[in-house]
Protein backbone atom coordinates (compact mmCIF):
# COMPACT_ATOMS: atom_id res chain seq x y z
CA UNK A 1 0.00 0.00 0.00
CA UNK A 2 1.32 3.42 -0.95
CA UNK A 3 0.88 6.02 1.78
CA UNK A 4 -2.01 8.34 1.10
CA UNK A 5 -2.80 7.07 -2.43
CA UNK A 6 -6.43 6.35 -1.50
CA UNK A 7 -8.86 8.45 0.51
CA UNK A 8 -12.20 8.11 2.26
CA UNK A 9 -14.38 10.75 0.60
CA UNK A 10 -17.81 9.68 1.84
CA UNK A 11 -18.79 8.54 5.33
CA UNK A 12 -22.04 8.33 7.23
CA UNK A 13 -23.99 6.29 9.74
CA UNK A 14 -27.65 5.37 9.54
CA UNK A 15 -30.07 8.24 10.04
CA UNK A 16 -31.05 6.76 13.37
CA UNK A 17 -29.09 4.68 15.88
CA UNK A 18 -30.40 2.73 18.84
CA UNK A 19 -33.68 0.86 18.50
CA UNK A 20 -34.94 0.81 14.91
CA UNK A 21 -37.74 -1.78 14.70
CA UNK A 22 -39.15 -0.36 11.46
CA UNK A 23 -36.15 -1.30 9.29
CA UNK A 24 -34.71 -4.63 8.27
CA UNK A 25 -31.00 -5.31 8.50
CA UNK A 26 -30.78 -5.02 4.70
CA UNK A 27 -32.42 -1.59 4.78
CA UNK A 28 -30.01 -0.44 7.50
CA UNK A 29 -27.16 -1.20 5.05
CA UNK A 30 -28.97 0.78 2.37
CA UNK A 31 -29.81 3.73 4.62
CA UNK A 32 -26.16 4.05 5.63
CA UNK A 33 -25.01 3.61 2.02
CA UNK A 34 -27.36 6.29 0.69
CA UNK A 35 -26.25 8.66 3.44
CA UNK A 36 -22.57 8.06 2.63
CA UNK A 37 -23.17 8.54 -1.09
CA UNK A 38 -25.09 11.76 -0.43
CA UNK A 39 -22.23 12.89 1.81
CA UNK A 40 -19.88 12.94 -1.19
CA UNK A 41 -22.39 13.70 -3.94
CA UNK A 42 -22.34 10.28 -5.62
CA UNK A 43 -25.07 7.84 -6.63
CA UNK A 44 -25.00 4.04 -6.71
CA UNK A 45 -24.20 4.09 -10.45
CA UNK A 46 -20.85 5.77 -9.63
CA UNK A 47 -19.81 2.80 -7.50
CA UNK A 48 -17.81 -0.03 -9.10
CA UNK A 49 -16.54 -1.79 -5.97
CA UNK A 50 -18.60 -3.21 -3.10
CA UNK A 51 -17.58 -4.69 0.22
CA UNK A 52 -19.69 -5.78 3.17
CA UNK A 53 -19.97 -8.27 6.02
CA UNK A 54 -22.94 -9.79 7.79
CA UNK A 55 -24.89 -9.77 4.54
CA UNK A 56 -23.70 -11.04 1.17
CA UNK A 57 -22.15 -8.36 -1.06
CA UNK A 58 -24.38 -9.84 -3.78
CA UNK A 59 -27.48 -8.89 -1.82
CA UNK A 60 -26.22 -5.38 -1.06
CA UNK A 61 -25.12 -4.70 -4.66
CA UNK A 62 -28.44 -5.88 -6.04
CA UNK A 63 -30.51 -3.99 -3.46
CA UNK A 64 -28.68 -0.73 -4.21
CA UNK A 65 -28.48 -1.26 -7.97
CA UNK A 66 -24.70 -1.51 -8.20
CA UNK A 67 -22.82 -3.43 -10.91
CA UNK A 68 -19.38 -3.91 -9.38
CA UNK A 69 -16.10 -4.92 -11.02
CA UNK A 70 -14.64 -5.71 -7.58
CA UNK A 71 -16.33 -7.54 -4.69
CA UNK A 72 -15.15 -8.29 -1.15
CA UNK A 73 -17.26 -10.34 1.23
CA UNK A 74 -14.58 -10.82 3.88
CA UNK A 75 -16.50 -11.63 7.03
CA UNK A 76 -14.30 -12.12 10.08
CA UNK A 77 -16.54 -10.41 12.63
CA UNK A 78 -16.69 -6.83 13.79
CA UNK A 79 -13.35 -5.75 12.31
CA UNK A 80 -14.32 -6.89 8.80
CA UNK A 81 -14.73 -3.25 7.75
CA UNK A 82 -11.11 -2.47 8.62
CA UNK A 83 -10.10 -5.33 6.36
CA UNK A 84 -12.44 -4.00 3.67
CA UNK A 85 -10.77 -0.57 3.85
CA UNK A 86 -7.36 -2.19 3.51
CA UNK A 87 -8.43 -4.45 0.63
CA UNK A 88 -10.28 -1.61 -1.12
CA UNK A 89 -7.18 0.59 -0.91
CA UNK A 90 -5.11 -2.12 -2.58
CA UNK A 91 -7.81 -2.77 -5.20
CA UNK A 92 -8.09 0.92 -6.13
CA UNK A 93 -4.31 1.22 -6.37
CA UNK A 94 -4.19 -1.90 -8.56
CA UNK A 95 -6.87 -0.53 -10.87
CA UNK A 96 -9.43 -3.26 -10.14
CA UNK A 97 -12.04 -0.57 -9.48
CA UNK A 98 -12.12 3.16 -8.90
CA UNK A 99 -14.79 3.88 -6.28
CA UNK A 100 -15.61 1.48 -3.46
CA UNK A 101 -18.65 1.45 -1.19
CA UNK A 102 -18.29 -0.39 2.13
CA UNK A 103 -21.55 -0.98 3.98
CA UNK A 104 -22.62 -2.17 7.39
CA UNK A 105 -26.09 -2.55 8.83
CA UNK A 106 -27.22 -4.65 11.74
CA UNK A 107 -30.53 -5.15 13.47
CA UNK A 108 -28.73 -6.28 16.60
CA UNK A 109 -31.45 -5.24 19.04
CA UNK A 110 -34.66 -5.52 17.03
CA UNK A 111 -33.59 -8.60 15.00
CA UNK A 112 -35.58 -7.53 11.93
CA UNK A 113 -34.71 -9.50 8.80
CA UNK A 114 -31.63 -11.00 10.34
CA UNK A 115 -30.09 -14.42 9.69
CA UNK A 116 -29.21 -16.76 12.55
CA UNK A 117 -25.94 -16.86 14.44
CA UNK A 118 -25.91 -20.61 15.10
CA UNK A 119 -22.88 -22.74 15.78
CA UNK A 120 -23.55 -26.20 14.45
CA UNK A 121 -22.80 -29.02 16.86
CA UNK A 122 -20.35 -30.52 14.38
CA UNK A 123 -18.00 -27.52 14.23
CA UNK A 124 -14.96 -27.46 16.47
CA UNK A 125 -16.56 -24.68 18.49
CA UNK A 126 -19.80 -26.66 18.65
CA UNK A 127 -17.96 -29.71 19.96
CA UNK A 128 -15.36 -28.20 22.25
CA UNK A 129 -16.82 -24.94 23.56
CA UNK A 130 -20.61 -24.75 23.27
CA UNK A 131 -21.34 -27.82 25.49
CA UNK A 132 -19.88 -25.94 28.48
CA UNK A 133 -22.61 -23.32 28.47
CA UNK A 134 -21.18 -20.11 27.02
CA UNK A 135 -23.88 -17.70 25.90
CA UNK A 136 -22.23 -15.67 23.20
CA UNK A 137 -19.57 -12.99 23.57
CA UNK A 138 -20.30 -12.02 27.22
CA UNK A 139 -19.07 -15.44 28.33
CA UNK A 140 -16.42 -16.06 25.65
CA UNK A 141 -14.71 -12.76 24.95
CA UNK A 142 -14.39 -12.25 28.71
CA UNK A 143 -12.75 -15.62 29.44
CA UNK A 144 -9.10 -14.51 29.13
CA UNK A 145 -9.50 -11.47 31.41
CA UNK A 146 -8.92 -13.06 34.84
CA UNK A 147 -5.66 -14.53 33.56
CA UNK A 148 -4.58 -11.09 32.37
CA UNK A 149 -5.52 -9.43 35.66
CA UNK A 150 -3.58 -11.96 37.71
CA UNK A 151 -0.48 -12.04 35.51
CA UNK A 152 -0.16 -8.26 35.29
CA UNK A 153 -1.46 -7.20 38.70
CA UNK A 154 -4.19 -5.12 37.06
CA UNK A 155 -7.11 -4.46 39.40
CA UNK A 156 -10.85 -4.82 38.88
CA UNK A 157 -11.10 -1.09 39.65
CA UNK A 158 -8.75 -0.32 36.76
CA UNK A 159 -10.81 -2.56 34.49
CA UNK A 160 -13.96 -0.71 35.58
CA UNK A 161 -12.32 2.66 34.89
CA UNK A 162 -12.42 1.86 31.16
CA UNK A 163 -16.21 2.12 31.25
CA UNK A 164 -16.13 5.24 33.45
CA UNK A 165 -13.81 7.22 31.16
CA UNK A 166 -15.65 6.21 28.01
CA UNK A 167 -18.87 7.39 29.56
CA UNK A 168 -17.21 10.79 29.97
CA UNK A 169 -16.64 10.86 26.21
CA UNK A 170 -20.20 9.68 25.55
CA UNK A 171 -21.57 12.53 27.68
CA UNK A 172 -20.32 14.90 24.96
CA UNK A 173 -21.95 12.98 22.13
CA UNK A 174 -25.66 13.67 21.52
CA UNK A 175 -26.04 10.40 19.58
CA UNK A 176 -24.61 8.23 22.35
CA UNK A 177 -27.00 5.69 23.89
CA UNK A 178 -25.79 6.25 27.47
CA UNK A 179 -24.61 9.68 28.63
CA UNK A 180 -25.07 9.83 32.42
CA UNK A 181 -21.85 9.90 34.46
CA UNK A 182 -20.59 6.68 36.06
CA UNK A 183 -18.27 5.87 38.94
CA UNK A 184 -16.01 2.86 39.39
CA UNK A 185 -18.36 1.80 42.21
CA UNK A 186 -21.35 2.01 39.84
CA UNK A 187 -19.56 -0.25 37.35
CA UNK A 188 -18.43 -2.83 39.91
CA UNK A 189 -21.83 -2.83 41.61
CA UNK A 190 -23.88 -3.28 38.44
CA UNK A 191 -25.66 -6.56 37.72
CA UNK A 192 -23.18 -9.40 37.32
CA UNK A 193 -23.25 -10.96 33.85
CA UNK A 194 -20.18 -13.20 33.83
CA UNK A 195 -17.80 -12.64 36.73
CA UNK A 196 -15.74 -10.46 36.72
CA UNK A 197 -17.80 -8.61 34.09
CA UNK A 198 -20.82 -6.62 35.20
CA UNK A 199 -23.36 -5.25 32.77
CA UNK A 200 -21.54 -1.90 32.57
CA UNK A 201 -18.34 -3.63 31.40
CA UNK A 202 -20.25 -5.16 28.47
CA UNK A 203 -21.20 -3.40 25.26
CA UNK A 204 -24.64 -2.19 24.31
CA UNK A 205 -26.89 -4.08 21.92
CA UNK A 206 -28.39 -1.65 19.41
CA UNK A 207 -29.49 -1.27 15.79
CA UNK A 208 -27.68 0.83 13.22
CA UNK A 209 -25.27 0.96 10.33
CA UNK A 210 -22.59 2.91 8.57
CA UNK A 211 -20.95 3.18 5.18
CA UNK A 212 -17.76 4.51 3.61
CA UNK A 213 -16.84 5.59 0.07
CA UNK A 214 -13.18 5.32 -0.99
CA UNK A 215 -11.46 6.46 -4.16
CA UNK A 216 -7.99 7.42 -5.34
CA UNK A 217 -6.47 10.44 -3.65
CA UNK A 218 -5.96 12.27 -6.94
CA UNK A 219 -9.75 12.43 -7.31
CA UNK A 220 -10.31 13.53 -3.72
CA UNK A 221 -10.46 17.20 -4.71
CA UNK A 222 -13.59 16.50 -6.78
CA UNK A 223 -15.70 15.93 -3.67
CA UNK A 224 -17.26 18.40 -1.24
CA UNK A 225 -15.87 16.57 1.80
CA UNK A 226 -12.47 16.88 3.45
CA UNK A 227 -10.57 13.76 2.36
CA UNK A 228 -9.27 11.29 4.91
CA UNK A 229 -6.20 9.57 3.49
CA UNK A 230 -5.34 5.94 4.17
CA UNK A 231 -1.72 5.89 5.32
CA UNK A 232 -1.49 2.20 6.08
CA UNK A 233 -3.12 -0.82 7.60
CA UNK A 234 -2.80 -4.32 8.91
CA UNK A 235 -4.88 -7.44 9.43
CA UNK A 236 -4.58 -10.94 10.83
CA UNK A 237 -6.48 -13.85 12.39
CA UNK A 238 -5.66 -16.23 15.21
CA UNK A 239 -8.30 -18.78 16.28
CA UNK A 240 -12.09 -19.12 16.15
CA UNK A 241 -12.01 -20.60 19.68
CA UNK A 242 -11.02 -18.29 22.52
CA UNK A 243 -9.94 -21.31 24.55
CA UNK A 244 -7.21 -21.95 21.98
CA UNK A 245 -5.51 -18.53 22.11
CA UNK A 246 -1.72 -18.92 22.22
CA UNK A 247 -1.57 -16.57 25.21
CA UNK A 248 -4.70 -15.44 27.06
CA UNK A 249 -3.03 -12.19 28.07
CA UNK A 250 -2.12 -11.00 24.56
CA UNK A 251 -3.77 -11.11 21.17
CA UNK A 252 -1.54 -12.43 18.41
CA UNK A 253 -3.94 -10.99 15.81
CA UNK A 254 -3.75 -7.54 17.44
CA UNK A 255 0.03 -7.59 17.43
CA UNK A 256 0.43 -8.79 13.84
CA UNK A 257 -2.17 -6.34 12.54
CA UNK A 258 -0.86 -3.42 14.57
CA UNK A 259 2.79 -3.94 13.66
CA UNK A 260 1.93 -4.07 9.97
CA UNK A 261 -0.24 -0.96 10.25
CA UNK A 262 2.53 1.08 11.88
CA UNK A 263 5.21 -0.21 9.50
CA UNK A 264 3.17 0.41 6.34
CA UNK A 265 2.11 3.91 7.36
CA UNK A 266 5.56 4.97 8.55
CA UNK A 267 4.14 6.63 11.65
CA UNK A 268 5.39 6.21 15.20
CA UNK A 269 3.28 6.14 18.37
CA UNK A 270 4.01 9.78 19.18
CA UNK A 271 2.44 10.79 15.86
CA UNK A 272 -0.97 9.43 16.91
CA UNK A 273 -3.43 12.18 17.85
CA UNK A 274 -6.49 9.98 18.19
CA UNK A 275 -7.06 6.29 18.80
CA UNK A 276 -10.02 3.98 18.45
CA UNK A 277 -9.84 0.48 19.97
CA UNK A 278 -12.91 -1.68 19.45
CA UNK A 279 -14.40 -2.11 22.93
CA UNK A 280 -16.99 -4.85 22.99
CA UNK A 281 -15.90 -5.40 26.62
CA UNK A 282 -13.90 -3.33 29.08
CA UNK A 283 -10.68 -5.34 28.79
CA UNK A 284 -10.29 -4.78 25.06
CA UNK A 285 -8.84 -1.24 25.20
CA UNK A 286 -6.35 -2.57 27.75
CA UNK A 287 -5.25 -5.42 25.48
CA UNK A 288 -5.24 -3.04 22.51
CA UNK A 289 -3.06 -0.39 24.16
CA UNK A 290 -0.47 -3.03 25.01
CA UNK A 291 -0.61 -5.13 21.84
CA UNK A 292 -0.40 -2.01 19.65
CA UNK A 293 2.62 -0.81 21.64
CA UNK A 294 1.13 2.31 23.26
CA UNK A 295 1.68 0.88 26.75
CA UNK A 296 4.12 -1.59 28.22
CA UNK A 297 2.88 -4.93 29.42
CA UNK A 298 0.62 -4.61 32.45
CA UNK A 299 0.52 -0.81 32.35
CA UNK A 300 -2.58 -0.13 30.25
CA UNK A 301 -5.09 -0.48 33.11
CA UNK A 302 -3.24 2.15 35.12
CA UNK A 303 -2.78 4.31 32.01
CA UNK A 304 -6.55 4.50 31.56
CA UNK A 305 -7.40 4.80 35.27
CA UNK A 306 -4.91 7.70 35.53
CA UNK A 307 -6.92 9.56 32.86
CA UNK A 308 -4.37 9.43 30.04
CA UNK A 309 -7.18 8.62 27.58
CA UNK A 310 -9.81 10.91 29.13
CA UNK A 311 -11.40 14.07 27.70
CA UNK A 312 -9.58 17.41 28.06
CA UNK A 313 -6.46 16.27 29.89
CA UNK A 314 -5.65 12.92 28.31
CA UNK A 315 -2.62 12.83 26.05
CA UNK A 316 -4.03 9.93 24.01
CA UNK A 317 -7.76 10.49 23.33
CA UNK A 318 -9.30 7.01 23.03
CA UNK A 319 -12.78 5.92 21.94
CA UNK A 320 -14.00 9.49 21.74
CA UNK A 321 -17.52 8.59 20.57
CA UNK A 322 -18.11 6.74 23.87
CA UNK A 323 -17.29 3.37 22.30
CA UNK A 324 -19.23 0.17 22.21
CA UNK A 325 -19.71 0.49 25.96
CA UNK A 326 -21.68 3.76 25.76
CA UNK A 327 -22.14 5.00 22.16
CA UNK A 328 -23.60 2.07 20.26
CA UNK A 329 -22.83 -1.55 19.42
CA UNK A 330 -24.94 -3.42 16.91
CA UNK A 331 -22.77 -6.57 16.94
CA UNK A 332 -20.10 -5.65 14.40
CA UNK A 333 -18.92 -2.35 15.86
CA UNK A 334 -15.85 -1.77 13.65
CA UNK A 335 -17.73 0.45 11.22
CA UNK A 336 -18.64 2.91 14.00
CA UNK A 337 -15.02 3.13 15.13
CA UNK A 338 -14.02 3.99 11.54
CA UNK A 339 -16.78 6.60 11.34
CA UNK A 340 -15.47 8.29 14.48
CA UNK A 341 -11.91 8.37 13.11
CA UNK A 342 -13.25 10.04 9.94
CA UNK A 343 -15.23 12.60 11.97
CA UNK A 344 -12.19 13.44 14.06
CA UNK A 345 -10.00 13.91 10.97
CA UNK A 346 -12.68 16.01 9.27
CA UNK A 347 -12.84 18.14 12.40
CA UNK A 348 -16.55 17.55 12.97
CA UNK A 349 -16.69 15.09 15.89
CA UNK A 350 -19.02 15.93 18.79
CA UNK A 351 -16.05 15.59 21.15
CA UNK A 352 -13.47 16.99 18.75
CA UNK A 353 -9.78 16.42 19.51
CA UNK A 354 -7.98 19.72 18.78
CA UNK A 355 -5.58 19.69 15.81
CA UNK A 356 -6.22 16.01 15.06
CA UNK A 357 -4.04 14.89 12.15
CA UNK A 358 -3.43 11.15 12.60
CA UNK A 359 -5.96 8.58 13.79
CA UNK A 360 -5.39 4.87 14.38
CA UNK A 361 -8.50 2.69 14.25
CA UNK A 362 -8.11 -0.83 15.60
CA UNK A 363 -10.75 -3.53 15.37
CA UNK A 364 -11.35 -7.03 16.65
CA UNK A 365 -13.43 -9.81 15.12
CA UNK A 366 -14.96 -12.76 16.90
CA UNK A 367 -13.49 -13.36 20.35
CA UNK A 368 -9.88 -12.30 19.69
CA UNK A 369 -10.32 -14.29 16.46
CA UNK A 370 -9.40 -11.58 13.97
CA UNK A 371 -8.07 -8.06 13.82
CA UNK A 372 -7.76 -5.12 11.45
CA UNK A 373 -5.99 -1.78 11.94
CA UNK A 374 -6.21 1.34 9.76
CA UNK A 375 -4.00 4.42 9.99
CA UNK A 376 -5.64 7.56 8.58
CA UNK A 377 -4.76 11.23 8.25
CA UNK A 378 -6.22 14.45 6.87
CA UNK A 379 -2.83 15.07 5.28
CA UNK A 380 -1.82 12.81 2.38
CA UNK A 381 1.62 11.97 3.77
Amino acid at each position, binding site marked *: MKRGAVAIVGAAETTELGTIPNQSQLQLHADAALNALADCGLSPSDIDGIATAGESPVGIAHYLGITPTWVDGTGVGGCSFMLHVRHATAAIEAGLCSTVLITHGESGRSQVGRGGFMRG*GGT*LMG*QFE*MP*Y*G*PMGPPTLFTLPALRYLKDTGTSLEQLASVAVIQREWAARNPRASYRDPLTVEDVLGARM*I*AYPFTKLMCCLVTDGGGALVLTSADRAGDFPTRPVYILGGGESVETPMVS*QMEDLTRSRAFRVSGERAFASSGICHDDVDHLMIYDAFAHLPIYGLEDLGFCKRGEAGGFIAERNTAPDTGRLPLNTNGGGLSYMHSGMYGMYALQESVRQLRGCAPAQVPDCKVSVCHGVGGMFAASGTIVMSNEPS
Partner: protein
Amino acid sequence: MAQRPRRALPRPTPETQHFWDGTRVGELRLQRCDACAHVYFPPRPFCPSCASRSVSAFPASGRGTLHSYVIHHRPMPGFEPPYSIAIVKLEEGPQMMSNVVGCPQTPEALELDMPLVVEFKEMSEDITLPLFRPAMLRGSEVAV
Protein backbone atom coordinates in the same frame (compact mmCIF):
# COMPACT_ATOMS: atom_id res chain seq x y z
CA MET B 1 -45.42 -29.59 23.72
CA ALA B 2 -41.94 -28.92 22.56
CA GLN B 3 -39.22 -30.18 24.89
CA ARG B 4 -37.38 -27.62 26.95
CA PRO B 5 -34.13 -26.71 25.23
CA ARG B 6 -31.25 -28.64 26.69
CA ARG B 7 -27.53 -28.28 26.90
CA ALA B 8 -25.88 -28.08 23.47
CA LEU B 9 -24.16 -31.37 22.71
CA PRO B 10 -21.30 -32.04 20.33
CA ARG B 11 -21.80 -33.84 17.05
CA PRO B 12 -18.57 -35.77 16.46
CA THR B 13 -16.96 -35.69 13.03
CA PRO B 14 -14.62 -38.30 11.54
CA GLU B 15 -11.65 -36.25 12.76
CA THR B 16 -12.89 -35.99 16.36
CA GLN B 17 -14.65 -39.34 16.86
CA HIS B 18 -11.68 -40.83 18.74
CA PHE B 19 -11.93 -38.05 21.34
CA TRP B 20 -15.61 -38.69 22.03
CA ASP B 21 -15.06 -42.46 21.99
CA GLY B 22 -12.40 -41.83 24.63
CA THR B 23 -14.57 -39.83 27.02
CA ARG B 24 -17.16 -42.63 26.96
CA VAL B 25 -14.57 -45.04 28.34
CA GLY B 26 -13.09 -42.58 30.81
CA GLU B 27 -10.13 -41.37 28.78
CA LEU B 28 -9.22 -37.80 27.86
CA ARG B 29 -7.49 -38.39 24.55
CA LEU B 30 -5.00 -35.93 23.12
CA GLN B 31 -2.89 -36.33 20.00
CA ARG B 32 0.88 -36.38 19.64
CA CYS B 33 2.83 -35.91 16.43
CA ASP B 34 4.94 -38.95 15.57
CA ALA B 35 7.43 -36.71 13.77
CA CYS B 36 8.00 -33.77 16.12
CA ALA B 37 6.31 -34.97 19.37
CA HIS B 38 4.08 -31.86 19.54
CA VAL B 39 0.98 -32.52 21.69
CA TYR B 40 -2.15 -30.68 20.58
CA PHE B 41 -5.89 -30.16 20.91
CA PRO B 42 -8.56 -29.90 19.47
CA PRO B 43 -8.27 -33.05 17.35
CA ARG B 44 -7.19 -33.06 13.72
CA PRO B 45 -5.48 -35.76 11.65
CA PHE B 46 -2.27 -33.80 11.16
CA CYS B 47 0.18 -31.90 13.32
CA PRO B 48 -0.59 -28.16 13.55
CA SER B 49 3.07 -27.52 14.29
CA CYS B 50 4.87 -29.41 11.49
CA ALA B 51 1.97 -30.58 9.25
CA SER B 52 2.94 -34.26 9.48
CA ARG B 53 0.00 -36.60 8.89
CA SER B 54 1.57 -39.20 11.13
CA VAL B 55 -0.05 -38.59 14.50
CA SER B 56 -1.26 -40.80 17.37
CA ALA B 57 -3.95 -40.41 19.99
CA PHE B 58 -3.06 -41.18 23.60
CA PRO B 59 -4.84 -40.88 26.96
CA ALA B 60 -3.87 -37.74 28.84
CA SER B 61 -3.29 -37.75 32.58
CA GLY B 62 -6.51 -35.85 33.19
CA ARG B 63 -4.66 -33.37 35.36
CA GLY B 64 -4.51 -29.67 34.71
CA THR B 65 -4.77 -26.23 36.26
CA LEU B 66 -7.42 -23.51 36.21
CA HIS B 67 -6.01 -21.10 33.63
CA SER B 68 -8.89 -18.61 33.42
CA TYR B 69 -12.66 -18.54 33.81
CA VAL B 70 -15.88 -16.58 34.08
CA ILE B 71 -18.83 -17.29 36.35
CA HIS B 72 -21.97 -17.02 34.27
CA HIS B 73 -24.95 -15.49 36.07
CA ARG B 74 -27.53 -15.53 33.28
CA PRO B 75 -30.10 -18.27 32.53
CA MET B 76 -28.90 -20.92 30.09
CA PRO B 77 -30.71 -24.08 28.97
CA GLY B 78 -29.33 -27.11 30.79
CA PHE B 79 -27.43 -25.10 33.41
CA GLU B 80 -28.14 -23.69 36.86
CA PRO B 81 -26.51 -20.28 37.19
CA PRO B 82 -24.16 -19.22 38.54
CA TYR B 83 -21.78 -21.69 36.88
CA SER B 84 -18.17 -21.51 35.81
CA ILE B 85 -16.93 -21.66 32.24
CA ALA B 86 -13.24 -22.32 32.38
CA ILE B 87 -10.11 -22.66 30.31
CA VAL B 88 -8.12 -25.57 31.72
CA LYS B 89 -4.41 -25.87 31.03
CA LEU B 90 -3.70 -29.56 30.74
CA GLU B 91 -0.54 -31.07 32.20
CA GLU B 92 0.51 -32.10 28.67
CA GLY B 93 0.33 -28.49 27.40
CA PRO B 94 -2.89 -27.92 25.45
CA GLN B 95 -5.75 -25.78 26.76
CA MET B 96 -9.41 -26.78 26.65
CA MET B 97 -12.70 -25.25 27.67
CA SER B 98 -14.74 -27.02 30.35
CA ASN B 99 -16.71 -26.42 33.54
CA VAL B 100 -15.22 -26.66 37.02
CA VAL B 101 -17.64 -28.67 39.15
CA GLY B 102 -17.65 -30.06 42.67
CA CYS B 103 -16.92 -26.77 44.41
CA PRO B 104 -18.77 -23.51 45.10
CA GLN B 105 -19.09 -21.41 41.97
CA THR B 106 -17.49 -18.36 43.57
CA PRO B 107 -14.30 -16.34 42.97
CA GLU B 108 -13.09 -17.47 46.42
CA ALA B 109 -13.42 -21.18 45.61
CA LEU B 110 -12.22 -20.85 42.04
CA GLU B 111 -8.63 -19.82 42.48
CA LEU B 112 -6.55 -19.33 39.34
CA ASP B 113 -3.86 -21.99 38.85
CA MET B 114 -5.54 -24.41 41.29
CA PRO B 115 -4.96 -28.07 40.35
CA LEU B 116 -7.88 -29.78 38.63
CA VAL B 117 -8.67 -33.32 37.64
CA VAL B 118 -11.00 -34.51 34.91
CA GLU B 119 -14.27 -36.27 35.59
CA PHE B 120 -16.66 -37.60 33.01
CA LYS B 121 -20.35 -36.78 32.77
CA GLU B 122 -22.54 -38.95 30.59
CA MET B 123 -24.96 -36.70 28.70
CA SER B 124 -26.43 -39.22 26.25
CA GLU B 125 -25.75 -42.67 24.85
CA ASP B 126 -23.16 -41.16 22.49
CA ILE B 127 -21.77 -38.19 24.34
CA THR B 128 -19.84 -38.02 27.59
CA LEU B 129 -18.39 -34.61 28.44
CA PRO B 130 -15.06 -34.06 30.21
CA LEU B 131 -15.59 -31.76 33.20
CA PHE B 132 -13.03 -30.82 35.85
CA ARG B 133 -13.09 -30.70 39.65
CA PRO B 134 -10.58 -29.37 42.15
CA ALA B 135 -7.85 -31.94 42.76
CA MET B 136 -7.54 -30.77 46.37
CA LEU B 137 -10.71 -30.36 48.41
CA ARG B 138 -10.68 -29.14 52.01
CA GLY B 139 -7.14 -30.30 52.56
CA SER B 140 -7.68 -33.89 51.49
CA GLU B 141 -6.37 -34.82 48.09
CA VAL B 142 -8.86 -36.45 45.80
CA ALA B 143 -7.49 -39.65 44.36
CA VAL B 144 -6.68 -39.33 40.65
